[in-house]
């Protein structure tokens, strides 16, 4: 392995952008569930509605707190007045659902006809008395998970800052925790407070399922670090206070706009860390936060080792195998870094968009991981071209392709193992405790195919000489 002892730098390329991914408006699917008192209004056409209806599957029947404001020919040609139309629909939403916030999702169509959503929102907000957050999550500019980024960036502007009536407001904001502390003696509450080191407030950003929020909060608590709030929180009315000088840290690799909004608009300090995906990532994430807050991390060695030991049965299945990311949700760098640590090789990481500054620490960890594991660094292909990628997959004899549903079945029919990438967005993959869940997903096609491998029907297409 002389070639790999020489440290290689990461290799970045950019292709044609002819790739398959979900439209960023899909973020309403998980955000409306996360923010319980919200209502998401997607202002677009039948095409947007059709996508949501089909992509969300059965969720659609559960009376979701989202709807389409479907634009008609009169809206496109400006025969109808945008403001009046939106007011009519928002009043209807207020009457039927009474949400604490309405989030407008701008789409390709509102961009092209230049509907001034940011301008209309404050006026309408004042008139109907419900906050309106505007996010331009359109397919002209963004891919899939970046939709959440646009929404959170817009919400960051709505987080309360240090208001003049701090005490009264804090009291109210802490109503829930007071309720939890109810019945506890004052000393107990004080004792609980003393479990934390005294540090600058830390707010974490990124929408994660509530159980994962609890797990990660507890993980930091073990180091004496207190999480002052999450963006987003369970309810819009509980958005965290953001003061100048607060520390913030991102939970997901696709939140670069939110990060820069927090830094530039809210004057927060970003802790640029690898993302807590996989035990290696989680550990690096905690260590980075500790180092910034001046805390000596404790017990991480044993903790990480213990988690790895628990993964051994899965690691045996994937060690030495190759994985190829076609790229569609921006989790690719972190997942590849974790899988390389697990002993896989990764010739290519496709990714829709690569923010080298926001992901700097993650990229550095990827490079370090490759060197430590003695494997070549992957080529990172931004805006990939799916057609070209398929040719490379055939040539390189890949063991596992992580890809969208459009390619999964056709590849399986050609005898190539695939894992549907979108599942990584919806599964719980963050923190020490969920590392096994990632490998559960990654190894599923390999475990399934282990039981099929002697049946002799690997290739199930006719006349495909080239595979």
């Amino acid at each position: 392995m002389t070639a790999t002892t020489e440290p290689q730098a990461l290799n970045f390329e950019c292709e044609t952008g002819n790739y398959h991914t979900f439209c960023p408006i899909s973020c309403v699917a998980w955000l409306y569930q996360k923010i319980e008192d919200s209502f998401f209004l997607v202002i677009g056409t039948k095409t947007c509605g059709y996508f949501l209806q089909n992509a969300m599957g059965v969720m659609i029947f559960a009376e979701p707190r989202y709807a389409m404001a479907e634009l008609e020919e009169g809206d496109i040609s400006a025969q109808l007045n945008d403001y009046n139309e939106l007011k009519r629909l928002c009043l209807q939403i207020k009457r039927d659902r009474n949400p604490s916030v309405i989030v407008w999702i701008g789409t390709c169509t509102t961009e092209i006809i230049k509907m001034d959503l940011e301008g209309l929102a404050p006026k309408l907000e004042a008139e109907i008395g419900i906050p309106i957050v505007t996010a331009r999550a359109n397919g002209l500019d963004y891919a899939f998970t970046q939709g959440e980024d646009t929404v959170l960036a817009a919400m960051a502007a709505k987080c309360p800052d240090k208001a003049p009536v701090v005490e009264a407001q804090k009291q109210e904001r802490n109503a829930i925790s007071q309720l939890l502390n109810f019945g506890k003696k004052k000393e107990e509450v004080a004792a609980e407070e003393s479990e934390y080191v005294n540090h600058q407030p830390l707010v974490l950003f990124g929408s994660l399922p509530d159980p994962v929020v609890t797990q990660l909060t507890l993980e930091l608590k073990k180091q004496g670090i207190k999480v002052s709030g999450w963006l987003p929180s369970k309810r819009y009315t509980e958005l965290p206070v953001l003061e100048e000088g607060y520390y913030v840290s991102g939970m997901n690799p696709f939140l670069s706009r939110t990060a820069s909004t927090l830094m530039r608009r809210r004057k927060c300090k970003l802790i640029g860390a690898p993302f807590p995906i996989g035990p290696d990532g989680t550990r690096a994430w905690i260590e980075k936060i500790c180092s910034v807050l001046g805390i000596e991390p404790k017990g991480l060695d044993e903790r990480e080792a213990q988690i790895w030991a628990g993964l051994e049965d899965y690691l045996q299945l994937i060690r030495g195998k190759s994985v190829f990311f076609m790229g569609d949700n921006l989790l690719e760098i972190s997942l590849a870094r974790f899988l390389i640590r697990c002993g896989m090789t990764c010739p290519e990481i496709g990714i829709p968009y690569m923010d080298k500054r926001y992901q700097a620490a993650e990229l550095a960890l990827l490079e370090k991981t490759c060197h430590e594991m003695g494997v070549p660094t992957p080529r990172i292909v931004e805006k990939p071209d799916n057609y070209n990628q398929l040719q490379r997959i055939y040539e390189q004899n890949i063991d596992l392709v992580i890809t969208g549903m459009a390619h999964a079945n056709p590849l399986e029919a050609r005898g190539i193992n695939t894992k549907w990438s979108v599942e990584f967005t919806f599964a719980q993959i963050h923190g020490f405790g969920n590392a096994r869940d990632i490998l559960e997903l990654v190894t599923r096609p390999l475990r399934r195919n282990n039981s099929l491998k002697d049946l002799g029907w690997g290739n199930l297409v006719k006349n495909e000489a080239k595979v």
Partner: protein
Amino acid sequence: MKLAYWMYAGPAHIGTLRVASSFKNVHAIMHAPIGDDYFNVMRSMLERERDFTPVTTSVVDRHVLARGSQERVVDNITRKDREEQPDLIVLTPTCTSSILQEDLENFVNRAQLDAKGDVMLADVNHYRVNELQAADRTLDQIVQLYINKARKKGDLETKSEKPSVNIIGMSTLGFHNQHDCTELKRLMADLGIEVNEVIPEGASVHNLKRLPRAWFNLVPYRELGMMAASYLEQEFGIPCVDITPMGVVETARCIRKIQQVLNAQGADVNYEDFIDQQTRFVSQAAWFSRSIDCQNLTGKKAVVFGDNTHAAAMTKILAREMGIHVVWAGTYCKHDADWFREQVSEYCDEVIVTDDHGAIGDAIAKAEPSAIFGTQMERHVGKRLDIPCGVIAAPIHVQNFPIGYKPFLGYEGTNQCVDLVYNSFTLGMEDHLLEIFGGHDTKEVITKGISADSDMGWTKEGQAELNKIPGFVRGKVKRNTEKFARDRGIEKITVEVLYAAKEAVGA
């Protein structure tokens, strides 16, 4: 603007893509932003398609917005022409591209200069037509393109010696289309009719010049194929049989129409014996109508909703062949509502034409039928109201693309319809009886193992965290956590213990 979160018929480009990707070796290129290629996911998932869906996107992004597509569309067409060598590339506009008002026709003409295959622009207006209308139009457009080409070259084929038929309207993502197609081919074989061409599913564009060979066109679905059939009728005088052979009576009517059409062209056929034999002894539906099972359904209330073809046929089957009381029948094909009214008005109390799923939900709740026959949306309404539902039309989910043979058309189709209808009603009856007599098993459930009523203490926070875990795994998580705590002599289960247990289970 319209507030909506569910639609029955998709946007226009879906119709165009369904037709284009049904043909063999035809590639569609969408002029669309990133993410609009969801069609590929649907085809790959719902139809479990083994091949890559022949649809790609010429991406409309911020640069296109600023400067127009310029060379990009032409490059993408010629590139695909090189890579896949399709016979035809269909440039497909989307709602986004139609507002940009770029001259796509011009791109097509320029690309045609370099491309070896044919290039065509799908002529559909996104704000005026839906998926079904667009599919109909695109099929017509492709047929005309190749008829005209053949006419210019002088290699149009002429009428076959023996009676033959074109089956028009079978397409990808159509409701049970593949099974229907097999069933119709069998029926034609039984009638001694040669199947000339089936379009668009599985057809090659090179074979479209053979269309004039057929003695008649069979268009089984009202939504797709009528435009192409009437074009062929105008140009070549090929008569069209547009009676959907769904249900015993309609199948007979369809066959009699075929007989009449063939005899008018000099064939001497008589299908009466065949119809009689099939009706009484091959299909079980006629016998079912007579049986005690069906007697019990007499006068039961049902509602029907779907596309024109299936809702109309199902209404007739229920009312005419089974004696069921159809309270209302509805369609979401607003553009073709008159046809629907004319078909069903004598078989139901009321006709509803709407594409608003909320209105349909309300109408179901008001009618309180014993069974619903509708789309997946009505199935879910039925779940909420505890009314069984048989799915008879798109929009549909993956379970409506069965692998087993389940046609809705022809004589085997009548058998499938009987099962669907009867199973829907009896399930409803069973539920009803269970409710009256208080469930299957009235004995106390015996606690199993360590699952229930343990003496383990949960802290309030721990319990709250446990309650956040989805119901279907909560019991398992609770058992595992308690076992974990018991093994370690932990008395109070906190949130920390809960997650420590989760990690330990992995280990």
